[in-house]
């Protein structure tokens, strides 16, 4: 294949590729909107805090230290 043909093919790919990307992602937009309509709203409301209250940074430090120490006590020897 000579360079002209390759350039033409890559131009085609540009069109095809961007076309595919836009079609598929647009379709996803529609699907997401449909899903959000179908899913009962009620379920959406009471889902604010999925994680427990954030631990204080002191607590985290203590835990990290504990894990660190625990690991050191269980090291593999060469």
């Amino acid at each position, binding site marked *: *294949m000579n*360079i002209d043909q*390759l*350039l033409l*093919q*890559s*131009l085609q*790919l*540009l069109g*095809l*590729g*961007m076309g*595919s*990307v*836009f*079609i*598929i*992602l*647009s*379709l*996803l*937009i529609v*699907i*997401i*909107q449909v*899903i*959000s309509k179908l*899913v*009962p709203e009620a*379920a*959406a*409301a009471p*889902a*604010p805090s999925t994680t427990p209250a954030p631990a204080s940074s002191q607590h985290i430090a203590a835990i990290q230290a504990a894990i660190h120490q625990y690991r050191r006590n269980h090291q593999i020897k060469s």
Partner: protein
Amino acid sequence: MEQGILELWASTGIANFTLGQVIMIAVGSLLIYLAIAKGFEPLLLIPIGFGGILANIPVAEIAGPEGLLGILYHSGIETGVFPLLIFMGVGAMTDFGPLLARPSLMILGAAAQFGIFSTLFGAIAMNLIPGMEFTMADAAAIAIIGGADGPTAIYVASRLAPDLLGAIAVAAYSYMALVPIIQPPIMKLLTTEEERKTQMTQLRQVSKLEKIIFPLALLLVTLLLLPSAAPLVGMLCFGNLLKESGVVDRLSNTAQNELINIVTIFLGLAVGSKLAADKFLSLETIGILLLGMVAFSIGTAAGLLMGKLMYRLTGGAVNPLIGAAGVSAVPMAARVANKMGLQANPQNFLLMHAMGPNVAGVIGSAVAAGVLLAIVG
């Protein structure tokens, strides 16, 4: 004794080094330096850089078919297993919530893929320069750098142009690290102060059920329209489903921690094995680095321009800055958009708004990869 000394001397590195190997060891060291001192994607660039050094040690043949790196490459990259497992882990780490809350922003993640396809054209055009010889497969593998997504780039390159994999992976991760430097000037150039100041309304709460259905819907669309993207998109969706289902936390935690860490170490070392001097030190590599930079810039610009269009169409409800996050480079590009927004207006927190286009960019690149694999592969 003398014979023994000679034999030992003949087996030293000093007696066997080629100039190319010396240069590549320096390149590997540079990657490690950038990773540690400058914070360039250290999770990938330290293993890749170190793998690059190991691969260029004479005599030892660590990247050969019986060496550790060669074995890792053969079993994990050639087969596609490592990038797909990384993608599963990424899926298990990704929260599609912001995207589901405002799906229209997905279009920004589509626009940014223009960086990929225009670079494809650019790579072929480079053949006009004497000495450059990129096949269509090479060009496609290079173009995917514009997807700003490491595992996707490695997966596509391993399928279409394994010889260029080293350069492509290095370019992809380097530019992802450089996003905070590459993107801001383009963002300033293409947007007005007014536009950058735009605040966006808070995102609605997304229900658990929507988050569970989404990965399955994404998989459905992919298998209907573009099955060649199904391995990548499928593993992304699988990881995400593990997380969102809420009933297999054991598996989700392992996928996004131990498993992805192990695979990241192996993948990095294996990619490094492709930094062998004879493949890497060529005119092509310079071309790849240039094209990768162009790809990132065009992708950023395309996302921004689509952002500006949405700004107009929505009467100023969308800040165009978040368009730049459409290139993916998760979560770096979203953070850059956030930072630029704050510079223009200290009350303007764009991070969550930019996460939607950001993860849409991951999907967009995987779709683009599917198109390239279907037609060029």
